């Protein structure tokens, strides 16, 4: 993508004013998306994006300049702009660049560019048709296919030179069902760090049916109960709760800024004995996986909770250095237009030993939270609110009526202490996590799990 001699020059220019560390991050990205709505393929879009950012770090201060040109002059200009934030004698030198060994974490079987666009159009049609066959109450289907192929190159003044090709593919289907004026939606959006072979594990018709079934089930929903009650979280989708209520607070930038309720609590038993959780960007093929993070650090498995004891935090290079924490390969950015910050990859609660069905049977009156609609957390306090897209009443140990309009309200550390059963099953859920205006692909994984009591904000 860029000559090594250019990389060395640009890094040297970036360090000319007293920076301690300089880095170039460059990428090219091609993408195709196909979108269907109202039974029509509305739009097929192809795109090409490229750009590079130059970062200069001194102490805890960072200057960053980016451009979408990759030639020597543009990169030198960007280095000059970033370096202009400092005005001192040079103090660091660029070490010889050593290419990091290639690491193929996510082997791709069917590169998207080798597949005709018409097959991608067929995939969205198949989602639409399968969804509409589920019920006469289906009013609308929005189906899309998206692929992205990203080549990245990272070089820094410590001598790191890493490159990687990341291919991601995703299907998304949202279905609107309506009966007697009652409107409900359902969605299913599987993705992977893989090529077109995603469709073998997540066939478009099954994807459309899943979204439709959720919407149709919710047509029969009654108003959610309100008050404190036991809640069983379904495998996969329930992982959003852990991602939001605990994961974000374990991102080192928030800890550093005293904006995390988990600050200074490493080694403390905060969660239930049954809670062990990891962030693992090195699971081959998962949507949130990569060989190297966006600073060139290899992805890894980081233990966050071990039998309830807080054991780790997720770092990028900057936070690892200024906080004296291990580098965990969580420095991620949405694109060249963003600074890397600590982000989750695949955040998973590890399976336990309880039987998933038995967990539901153990609850006399409570709620079964199957799919989250998203949520919000205040990492400083740990307070959170999550909407439930699909939830059921548990009555005498059985799932009975679906409920709508339910929210889970609580506090992260309090809730993880109340986990009192963990299933032996495990599923993942795919999302795009937003933080500081940057969206990155993540998965949340977890087994069936019971929380002894949590506040449900409902309508009745």
């Amino acid at each position, binding site marked *: 993508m860029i000559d090594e001699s250019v990389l060395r020059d640009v890094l040297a220019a970036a360090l000319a004013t007293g920076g301690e560390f300089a880095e170039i991050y460059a990428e090219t990205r091609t993408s195709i998306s196909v979108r269907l709505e109202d039974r029509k393929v509305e739009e097929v879009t192809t795109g090409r994006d490229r750009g590079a950012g130059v970062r200069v770090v001194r102490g805890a201060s960072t200057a960053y300049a980016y451009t979408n040109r990759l030639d020597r002059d543009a990169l030198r200009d960007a280095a000059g702009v970033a370096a202009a934030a400092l005005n001192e004698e040079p103090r660091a030198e660029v070490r010889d660049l050593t290419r990091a060994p290639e690491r193929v974490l996510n082997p791709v079987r069917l590169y998207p560019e080798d597949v005709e666009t018409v097959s991608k159009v067929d995939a969205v049609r198949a989602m639409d048709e399968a969804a509409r066959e589920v019920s006469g109450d289906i009013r609308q289907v929005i189906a899309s296919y998206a692929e992205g192929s990203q080549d990245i190159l990272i070089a820094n003044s410590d001598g790191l030179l890493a490159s990687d090709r990341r291919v991601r593919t995703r299907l998304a289907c949202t279905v609107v069902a309506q009966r007697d004026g009652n409107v409900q939606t359902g969605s299913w959006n599987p993705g992977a760090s893989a090529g077109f072979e995603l469709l073998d594990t997540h066939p478009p018709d099954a994807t459309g049916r899943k979204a439709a079934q959720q919407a149709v089930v919710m047509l029969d929903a009654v108003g959610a109960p309100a008050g404190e009650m036991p809640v069983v979280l379904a495998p996969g989708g329930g992982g959003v709760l852990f991602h939001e209520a605990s994961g974000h607070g374990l991102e080192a930038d928030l800890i550093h800024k005293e904006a995390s309720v988990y600050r200074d609590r490493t080694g403390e038993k905060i969660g239930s004995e049954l809670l062990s959780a990891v962030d693992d960007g090195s699971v081959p093929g998962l949507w949130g996986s990569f060989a190297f993070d966006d600073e060139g650090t290899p992805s890894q498995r980081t233990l966050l909770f071990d039998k309830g004891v807080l054991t780790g935090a997720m770092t990028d290079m900057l936070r690892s250095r200024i906080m004296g924490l291990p580098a965990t390969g969580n420095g991620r950015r949405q694109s060249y237009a963003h600074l890397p910050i600590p982000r989750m990859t695949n955040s998973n609660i590890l399976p336990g030993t309880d039987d998933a069905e038995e967990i539901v049977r153990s609850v006399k009156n409570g709620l079964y939270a199957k799919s989250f609609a998203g949520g919000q957390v205040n990492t400083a306090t740990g307070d959170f609110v999550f909407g439930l897209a699909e939830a059921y009443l548990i009555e005498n140990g059985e799932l009975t009526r679906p409920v709508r*309009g339910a929210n889970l309200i609580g506090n992260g550390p309090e809730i993880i202490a109340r986990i009192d059963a963990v299933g032996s099953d495990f599923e993942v859920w795919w999302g795009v996590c937003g933080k500081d205006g940057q969206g990155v692909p993540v998965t949340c994984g977890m087994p069936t799990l019971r929380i002894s009591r949590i506040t449900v904000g409902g309508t009745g």
Partner: protein
Amino acid sequence: MSDDLLELARRAVEAARSGEAIEAFASWGRETEVKVYQGEVESLVSAESRGIGVRAIVDGKLGYAYAADPDPDEIADVVEQARTNAALAARDDGNVLPAPQPIEPLAGILLPELLEATAEQKVALAMAIERACREADARVKGVESAQYGEGLGRVAVASTTGVEATSERGDCWAAAVALSSDGDGETQTGFGLQIARRPSDLAVEAAGREAAERAVRLLGARKPPSGRMPVMLDPFAAASFLGVVTSGLSAESVLKGRSLFAGRVGERVASERFELIDDGRELAGPGAEPFDGEGVPTRRTPLIAGGVLQGFLHNTYTAARMGGSSTGNASRAGFKSTPGVSTTNLILAPGDATPSALAASAGRTLLVQDLIGVHSGANPISGDFSVGVDGVILEDGHPAEGVREATIASTVLDILRNVVATANDLRFLPFGGSIGTPSILVGEMTVAGL
């Protein structure tokens, strides 16, 4: 530079074949953002990017392609990709390009002084935000973020129907997140924000003080007992609520069966005190632009008047489908996407009373400063509205006790019909575009807590 963008866009139009409609949207942007933390520069980001997006309409079928920083020689290839993509899409007679219309320039959306601040001055502004936040109250224990930002953008649109338009705009902002603590381990956060067209008009200290005030106000907040009481949404909370309302006021939502307002034009959908407009020419709002994402002039469009629904916001596509004309609300999320429909400056008319006088008139009132979980708890299609809230209970207009971990559950239409009055504190917030709103007093609602 705008000329340069227009040149790129024209080149795409020149690559059109007979019978094709081609439109090119080219944009350039430059942004600077300075964040400070504990008196030091945490980050300084300077960015420049440009690109072009091409819509090709062939036999009523739409294809799109884009490229970042294209060479003039590559433009024909981008057009060819858009053309190829069009062949795979479904025919839709709504796919038409607008005819050219005279565009009145909007002086004032770019002030020359915006371009004059040096890096040192920008750093000093960010430092002033942080300092004002920290010094505002002894209970502010930290400032999670304090930032100054400015953005400058230029766009050019050209098409085979003869549209040729260029404009440039710029603004700047100051934002802070304060962390407060009263010593017993409890921490609360508060957000403050100011926007302006040039640094000298930017109330940087007010942004810091606002963050502090909002964080301190929540100290000692508790989950309240469940009950019914009047609720006042402050401008931040009101803007989040209006964000949900407006998604239903887009003709795109109506066409796609996603609007709770569909088929209700001429009906009472809100309290008669509720006056809502969209105005792309209101200079006080950050959404002001002379023309929209297709080169159609912006204008003032009444949406709800005296509580009665007046109509919807359109781009050229939705107008063609529903029989009408574009209201100048075609929106582009940069050069990478086709035009959608969105508000320019959405404005809710203010009333005469101050927020505290209004709250005092209602008795014991919950003042909501944050709606939490709106993107999950508010369903813009069904209108179900169930969100977390925090804020303070006002007795006779004065803060009595803090509230957190409470929820309100209602529907969008019930809340709109239950609006008692709006206060006189209208302000523009850049949430989901640009929303200008005062505090809104809503009659009794169920607030769920303990």
